[in-house]
């Protein structure tokens, strides 16, 4: 077993364990922090894939912004720190069954595919992925439309979120 494989297995195991904690921990702030751990594991996975830019963006966007947003939301929607009641709904076993079936099904499908055991060609030494990514994003023959649409999507999300959550007319009806 080579060093790369050992690194991959350690990271994958860590990520899956953290992911499992995300979906089972009772305390929601802990769940959000476990999510950070899992996402960090995914960032390391990107590093093993030589996707430097994705790895850093993963940390900047997920850990720097999305995790913070989750923690803020958890604190905005709870009136005390204790978690009362069960965290799982009564059909949780059905969910578990479906998840196992999904994994089994995906595994079965992947196993029948000939590209499964493919190994990567060695990474080109002087290949500047970010520069290539830049030209792919903005060149007219590349992905310029998704690039601009992403901007529109995010602005739409901002406008929608601001409107939904904080419309003054939509205030607290219990008052």
């Amino acid at each position, binding site marked *: 077993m080579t060093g790369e494989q050992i690194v991959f297995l350690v990271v994958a195991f860590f990520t899956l364990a953290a992911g499992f904690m*995300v979906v089972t921990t009772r305390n929601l702030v802990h769940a959000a922090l476990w999510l950070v751990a899992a996402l960090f594991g995914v960032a390391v*996975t990107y590093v093993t894939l030589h996707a430097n830019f994705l790895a850093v963006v993963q940390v900047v966007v997920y850990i720097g912004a*999305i995790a913070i947003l989750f923690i803020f939301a958890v604190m905005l929607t709870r009136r005390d720190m204790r978690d009362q009641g069960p965290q799982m709904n009564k059909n949780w076993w059905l969910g578990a069954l479906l998840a196992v079936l999904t994994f089994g099904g995906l*595994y079965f499908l992947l196993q029948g595919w000939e590209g*499964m055991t493919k190994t990567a060609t060695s990474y080109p030494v002087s290949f500047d992925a970010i520069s290539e990514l830049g030209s792919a994003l903005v060149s007219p023959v590349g992905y310029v439309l998704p690039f601009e649409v992403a901007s529109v*999507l995010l602005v739409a999300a901002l406008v*929608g*979120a601001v409107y939904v*959550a904080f419309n003054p007319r939509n205030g607290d*009806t219990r008052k």
Partner: protein
Amino acid sequence: MVPLSWYLVFAAALFSIGMFGVLSRRNAVAILLGIELMLNAVNINLAAFWRYGDVRLMTGQVFAIIVFAVAAAEVAVGLALVISVYRNRHTVVADEIDMLKW
């Protein structure tokens, strides 16, 4: 060298864990946490296919970045909805949010 299958199986496992979270948690915020895991599993696949295909074609990375934007938009709107419901109904338990309009 790590074969492609390892990444795909890893991503499938992460996706299944996320799906379990989505299907079985009661708290709406926790459901969104599960969705994040699923989106990340998708992104691992995209990055792995980029690396194991022709590295010079940036399609995989471009799509992964678009998925980042989608994930951000999803979290922003999803959590805004949860907060809105909480302000109106004082609950974030998904089972109890059963009215179409309030």
